[in-house]
């Protein structure tokens, strides 16, 4: 497969692994967080940790939109779907995410709610056009990558004069969350992170600029990297070199897609439709200031939160859940009592197990053979 195989070449990977092993100084330890679930997935899927020396540790960050969606918002979506006359359009990943009372969209659908899986915002828009008597709500989630398509759909809906299309907006912002990870009071008690493997797709939209202040203020190395396994290996090598040389810069490994300014057109669409919320809850991280978007007043008629009068009630995770600590690198999935016992991809209890990009789910699905797995931790 052209333009993909080149970035998955095993021979190149082994050569890079040698370079990393040579560059990593044996008396030092290196702790890098990959923020995005896409990176977490690539690392687990290709077994990259087996190719790195023991003193390089990868900490899996919170960059999985399904994982960080707070339970309260999931409850809101389920309740919306249960209202007569409403058709809730959602990406498939959200169907099985449990709400606070064991409900989920897939269960609500089975009980008669009109929940439809869509592959894009345009599918939802088409449903609204074809079924004018249904009130079609698009369950909008995701980082900067999925925000522009939601903006496009809303602009289009406005142009078409649709009265039955709405967005339930849960779009969140990456730079704010990265900052919260190193700048929050909890982070003082966390494992210090030496550098970040920066987002791939997100950065194609926002560019490299938004990371500069962060790298400077917190003295952290950042290497923006693609989601292919060789991208990740190359980024690790670049991070090791930055640390060795005492640098803390924003470097761009993903030059084939990411520019300094990003995608201006997409940014304009987003700015037309959305504005920043004062604060938003991230599952596993708690309230993070200025970390999410809401619809502007001009789009109030399309805002499901306003039209359907949604007031989110915060719901707590299971008290034994260690997702917060795992996301900050203090604990590993296997340190959590729930991991692999009560909490599995089939019955996720915490955010990190919810989607395949979450750190617990990735470790369970791809890497649990590395743990000295006690008998009861087997899949049933």
């Amino acid at each position, binding site marked *: 497969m052209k333009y993909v195989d080149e970035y998955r070449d095993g021979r190149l990977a082994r050569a890079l692994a040698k370079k990393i092993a040579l560059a990593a100084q044996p008396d030092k330890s290196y702790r890098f967080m990959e923020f995005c679930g896409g990176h977490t997935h690539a690392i687990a899927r290709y*077994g990259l940790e087996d*190719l790195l020396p023991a003193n390089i540790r990868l900490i899996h960050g919170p960059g999985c939109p399904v994982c960080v969606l707070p339970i309260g918002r999931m409850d809101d979506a389920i309740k919306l779907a249960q209202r007569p006359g409403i058709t809730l359009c959602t990406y498939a990943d959200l169907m099985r995410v449990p709400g606070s009372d064991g409900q989920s969209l897939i269960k609500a659908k089975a009980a008669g709610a009109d929940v439809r899986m869509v592959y894009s915002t345009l599918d939802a828009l088409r449903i609204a056009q074809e079924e004018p008597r249904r009130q079609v709500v698009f369950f909008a989630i995701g980082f900067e990558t999925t925000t522009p398509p939601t903006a496009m759909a809303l602009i289009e809906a406005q142009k078409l004069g649709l009265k039955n299309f709405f967005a339930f907006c849960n779009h969140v912002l990456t730079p704010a969350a990265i900052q919260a990870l190193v700048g929050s009071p909890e982070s003082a008690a966390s494992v210090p992170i030496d550098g970040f493997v920066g987002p791939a797709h997100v950065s194609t939209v926002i560019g490299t600029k938004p990371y500069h202040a962060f790298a400077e203020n917190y003295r952290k190395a950042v290497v923006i990297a693609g989601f292919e396994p060789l991208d990740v290996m190359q980024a690790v090598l670049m991070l090791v070199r930055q640390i060795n040389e005492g640098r803390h810069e924003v470097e761009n490994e993903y030059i084939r897609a990411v520019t300094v300014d990003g995608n201006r057109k997409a940014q304009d669409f987003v700015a037309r439709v959305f504005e920043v919320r004062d604060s938003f809850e991230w599952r596993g991280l708690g309230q993070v200031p200025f970390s999410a978007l809401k619809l502007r007043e001009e789009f109030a008629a399309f805002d499901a939160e306003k039209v359907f009068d949604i007031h989110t009630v915060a719901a707590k995770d299971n008290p034994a859940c260690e997702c917060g600590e795992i996301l900050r690198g203090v604990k590993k999935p296997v340190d959590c009592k729930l991991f692999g016992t009560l909490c599995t991809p*089939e019955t996720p209890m915490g955010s990190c197990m919810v989607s*395949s990009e979450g750190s617990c789910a990735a470790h369970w699905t*791809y890497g649990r053979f590395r743990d000295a797995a006690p008998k009861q931790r087997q899949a049933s």
Partner: protein
Amino acid sequence: MTAPRLRSRKLDVKNGRVDLSHGSGGRAMAQLIADIFHDSFANDLLAQGNDQAVFDIPAGRMAMTTDGYVVSPLFFPGGDIGSLAVHGTVNDLAMSGAKPLYLSASFILEEGFPLADLQRIARSMGAAAREAGVKIVTGDTKVVERGKADGVFISTAGVGLVPDGVELSGDRARPGDAILVSGTLGDHGVAIMSSRENLQFETQIVSDSAALHGLTGAMVAACGNDLRLMRDPTRGGLAATLNEIAHQSGVGIRIEEDALPIRPEVAAACELLGLDPLFVANEGKLVAFSSPEAAEKLLSVMHSHPLGRDAALIGHVVADENHFVQMTTSFGGGRIVDWLSGEQLPRIC
């Protein structure tokens, strides 16, 4: 005066649709069965017109299986629900080493379903059965109101004859055994996805739907009990099948990513859709476990059959009390190949 001859109007297959009378047990149903099903499946046992088929069996052991088909869309590149129903049932029998003999077919039809489509499906079933050398010897038809089904659902049963001394079973894998697949993985699932209305992309990928008993017959004949077991990796793909066997036999499994036969088009489509070909369904492929000594011979027997041309040795059975299925990635790293969690592609068969 002679009584007026009872004349029934010919079934209007071209423009007609299934209505509730086609399931009511009256003349309309009899006509539907005669004009569409008998016409398509034509064989001596069905022609007797009884509510059951009666046939002789030689002494020995039989294999029996049952299966339901709800695929959407009903027609897809490389097949349709009819041929799929025959192939799927034949393959379930063939994996035991059996020679498939007779099938049954029960149709749940939705009111309003075009008779032309029903005829196309029935003819495709008949053709698939003739090609596989099996007979559809008994059947049933029910009609449900519009909206209570999705066009047509088919459920089948099948019986076959297991040759003397053949003992294939999912609990027979032992450490050291070789694991082979008969060809490229994921073709069926991707072909179905490519024909879904909201996911159209131009592709040359056709379903691999095929009856495998010719291939399995040759494998059994060549390797006898050195062949431990066979299974067709349908829903859940290769990953599900390997996990089933690991648990059933109480062993671990190690496979090599570089050894897996996957068409570049399938890999590309999976990439686009965020799927892993290991979890995508096949309808004309099998996984075989054999003694280490017989592996090479088995591979060459598979290679010499048209349905095993792309067969490959993909890994080995190991001792592992955790029953993990592990894969060495093309990078040289390790990972687990787990069961599929949730539904990757609904209604693919």
